[in-house]
């Protein structure tokens, strides 16, 4: 069977751990040092979903902050995305809602996994929250992750990959 290529975007507020999740997934490394992303860094990883070989082209896009929003051109042709929240910071939930709506407006309904990152800091997480429940209801999966302790990272990408193979795509559209 031929290999399918799928563009997947990492989306979220600044410093939620988008780059760290990709580095953990692709290179099995983690750094405590915060190096903010400019523009986009492209990576690739092969996965299998059922019988199907997939090549995930990962777009680690710069984060949202009060000075800059993610522009739709970066998301052109995406098949799905990972929406990353840092539940130790409530504002990152609002950013995620905004990004989710931006995708819907420009590209329609695309499958996404909601990643609640920094699960190693769970004692500092905010509690139940309306915007968070809204995202949890729209996502194909909600996964607690830690790039630091390597928790849930493979699971997060596997869940999205499974939604990107053709038989499942039909159901979603």
């Amino acid at each position, binding site marked *: 069977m031929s290999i399918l290529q*799928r563009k997947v975007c990492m989306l979220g507020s600044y410093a939620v751990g988008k780059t760290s999740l990709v580095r953990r997934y692709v290179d099995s490394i983690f750094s405590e040092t*915060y190096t*903010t992303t*400019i523009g986009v*860094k*492209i990576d690739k990883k092969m996965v299998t979903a059922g019988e199907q070989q997939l090549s995930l082209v990962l777009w680690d896009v710069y984060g949202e902050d*009060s000075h800059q929003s993610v522009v739709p*051109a970066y998301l052109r042709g995406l098949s799905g995305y990972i929406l990353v929240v840092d539940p130790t*910071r409530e504002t990152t939930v609002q950013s995620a809602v905004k990004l989710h709506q931006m995708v819907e407006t420009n590209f329609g309904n695309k499958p996404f996994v909601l990643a609640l990152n920094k699960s190693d800091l769970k004692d500092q997480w905010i509690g139940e929250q309306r915007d968070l429940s809204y995202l949890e209801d729209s996502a194909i999966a909600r996964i607690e992750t830690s790039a630091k302790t390597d928790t849930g990272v493979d699971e997060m990408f596997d869940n999205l990959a499974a939604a990107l193979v053709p038989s499942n795509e039909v159901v979603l559209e």
Partner: protein
Amino acid sequence: MSLVATPITIARYLRKLGADTRALAYLELDQSLHVIASGGNLEILGTTTINSNKSITSQVDILVGLIPTGTAPVIIANAQMVKDRFFDLHLFKELERQWVLLLDSTESARNLQADQQVRLNNALLLEQEQKSEKK
């Protein structure tokens, strides 16, 4: 990229943009997205050899989902495939040909990175202060 060997379409586009000196590489693709012509430094795309018998999207990851475009340019600023080498990607169609143009943006991206790092480190600190005040 030597401007002597630059196709007229690219030369015209660069002149309009006023970005001649930043030109790094280009690809000219047919309707099935196979390479007809290319020039400049393609290593920045993470590949050295391009096979014109295979679709470009199976060889250059960043192009997956992006092409084909319409005649209006699609621009991706500050893309990075090889660590710390930044480029602006310009994609447009002209006369049934898909054009891919890469402009060097490494220097401006480096400055942008330094500014953004300071700004976001400060923003994070402020968030932390506000959080501990609330408690």
